[in-house]
């Protein structure tokens, strides 16, 4: 069981900044995210895109913003459960919450802050009839254990980095690798494209373009896929079909936590503290909604800041506190570090 003060669901910019604001109040944070890395959409979708509306940053790349936030929160030693999706929440008699992930990791905290953006990133499934039937029977959307494909015939579909990189990787493992894409052009990194070209020339990857998989064939498990190219349809025997079409966010299990949902977002009290209809559970950043809501990173930062003050009161109902400016109080990390403004030097004029 992981114990913390504020359990943050979602490690995007809003979730990360929450660690900082909580840290100033001496509250410890732990973050859960379905993605294997922190940063949310900024890291997953557009790390190289510039953002122009972060106050005091005329321009910053999304990836840099995440790096800076990680650096800013480092003194507060946040814990991370990455690559796991928050699945269930149970309120305990003592008022704390236990959040369990899809892999069974349990976390306990008196305050839960949902900073889940548009939801957890799930693989996009191509609209092929009966594809669900073959899941776990030869259709995988994520490669968890490459050994599964040893000496197998594998068909990968997609045109991005993951399709290219896994095609390259699996040439050393699988009996055969076939890569199918709707265009001749691939949008993945240039050296990956060149490597696939090289492997194709060596006969280690079979490339079928411009083409798409339109059907799956097999009684119990995948035995072949139906491929459509230039109007012709032919079967390609294989043991595994791996469609890699990127990830899309889905609100997912948090939609079933008893929270008030409106427009695919969690309703909160924005006049006070961004608390949801369940006391002790807050929702901040893109995942929440209230009259006039804007899904902006800078709004998420603001919401996180107010939410932490409320969380403090909830955790310490008998303590009085007023917000201190960092220019005055500095930043005292949980790691023993201390940052503060240098003392002014007072010098007399003789």
């Amino acid at each position, binding site marked *: 069981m992981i114990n913390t003060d504020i359990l943050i669901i979602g490690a995007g910019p809003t979730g990360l900044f929450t660690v900082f604001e909580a840290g100033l109040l001496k509250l410890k944070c732990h973050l859960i995210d379905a993605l294997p890395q922190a940063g949310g959409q900024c890291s997953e979708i557009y790390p190289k895109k510039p953002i122009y509306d972060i106050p005091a940053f005329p321009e910053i790349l999304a990836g840099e913003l995440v790096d800076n936030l990680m650096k800013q929160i480092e003194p507060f030693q946040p814990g991370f459960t990455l690559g796991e999706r928050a699945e269930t929440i149970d309120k305990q008699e003592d008022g704390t919450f236990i959040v369990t992930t899809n892999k069974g990791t349990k976390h306990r905290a008196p305050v839960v802050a949902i900073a889940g953006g548009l939801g957890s990133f799930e693989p996009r499934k191509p*609209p092929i009839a009966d594809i669900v039937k073959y899941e776990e029977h030869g259709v995988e959307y994520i490669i968890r254990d490459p050994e599964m494909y040893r000496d197998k015939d594998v068909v990968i579909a997609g045109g991005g980095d993951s399709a290219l990189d896994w095609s390259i990787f699996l040439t050393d493992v699988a009996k055969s690798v076939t890569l199918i894409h709707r265009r001749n052009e691939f949008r993945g990194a240039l050296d990956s494209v060149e490597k696939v070209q090289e492997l194709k020339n060596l006969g280690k990857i079979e490339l079928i373009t411009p083409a798409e998989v339109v059907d799956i064939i097999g009684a119990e498990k995948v035995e072949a896929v139906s491929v459509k190219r230039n109007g012709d349809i032919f079967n390609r025997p294989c043991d595994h079909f791996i469609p890699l*079409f990127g990830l899309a966010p889905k609100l997912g299990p948090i939609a079933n936590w008893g929270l008030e949902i409106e427009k*695919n977002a969690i309703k909160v009290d924005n006049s006070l503290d961004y608390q949801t209809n369940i006391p002790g559970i807050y929702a901040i950043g893109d995942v929440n909604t209230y009259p006039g809501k804007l899904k902006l990173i800078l709004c998420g930062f603001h919401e996180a800041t107010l939410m932490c003050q409320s969380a403090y009161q909830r955790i310490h109902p008998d303590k009085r506190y007023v917000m201190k400016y960092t220019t005055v109080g500095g930043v005292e990390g949980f790691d023993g570090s201390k940052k503060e403004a240098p003392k002014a030097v007072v010098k007399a004029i003789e």
Partner: protein
Amino acid sequence: MQDIKITIIDREGEEHLVDAPTDMNLNVMEIVRSYELAPEGTIGICGGMAMCASCQCYVLSDHELPEKSDEEEAMLAEAFYVKDNSRLGCQIRITPQLDGLKVQLAPES
């Protein structure tokens, strides 16, 4: 600058004739969102960077549209339910020339 009229067929098949301003640098995806013709969270997920395909639409009128960028081509190559007249709504900027444009939203995927 004047508003133009565009027709948007939503994912339920209902047709909406809406006014779209030409002076706010908006695109078709944003017009759909401003009239709430698709549920929030199901359109414009990447914000309009041609990095998801949640705003895919079929262009039903014969307006001349801006050329597809490499990014849009690449994204459409990985989208689902793609047809010859598929475009990403976020890449179609509202201009006076698009008066009378008619688009249909592609299914959610």
